[in-house]
């Protein structure tokens, strides 16, 4: 546990989490959520939970981002109202 690294990672996780919620464009939101997942993976590795970090890197940052993009592909870019 290096507290400086912990602090930086936690701040980045907070920033990406808030950004993913507040961004209007769905595609940007999905990509920022992928970055959030990757930062969570780094945080878990740093805390020693390598198995959880591996799952997060494969499922969270890898496959679920692709699923989000594939689902967003069926929507329109601008809202109707």
């Amino acid at each position, binding site marked *: 546990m290096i507290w400086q690294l912990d602090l930086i990672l936690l701040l980045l996780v907070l920033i990406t989490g808030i950004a993913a919620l507040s961004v209007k464009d769905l595609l940007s939101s999905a990509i920022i959520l992928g970055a959030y997942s990757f930062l969570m993976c780094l945080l878990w590795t740093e805390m020693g939970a390598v*198995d959880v970090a*591996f799952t997060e890197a*494969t499922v969270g940052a890898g496959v679920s981002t692709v*699923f989000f993009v*594939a689902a967003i*592909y069926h929507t329109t870019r601008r809202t109707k109202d």
Partner: protein
Amino acid sequence: MIKKHDDLIVETLARLLTPFIQAFALYVLFLGHYSPGGGFQGGVLVAASFILLIIAFDLEKTTERFSEKFNVICNGGGVFIYAGIGVLCILLGGNLLDYSVLSKILPVGPEEARALGILGVEIGVEITVAACLVSIFIDLASKGENLGGS
């Protein structure tokens, strides 16, 4: 949704990367005894390699290799391997998923039978997870149309 587009770099890179991703998935599966990893992570990696093929090439060309019928068979077959090993342990006189009694039918001792039993269960988990994720992506990418096969 995903149509054929001619991009030589993307196609070549996907074609070169896919066997290495699948080999790494098998490495993760078999080293899951001693290190982080195991059936679930390996299965997600196998699914990721097929998703990469679907994105780089088109949906029809990939489903020729990994058809939806085969996908359904894999989906059920992995669960069957998992449950089959568990029930086999009961039939041999142990508890559910008590792999040490597998030494009665395998030519190894109880300790090695435990390792082989958990390996069989992990293989079942890997097959089911890979087929399930690929089928989710095919359904998302093809708007739920049936591509034939099943």
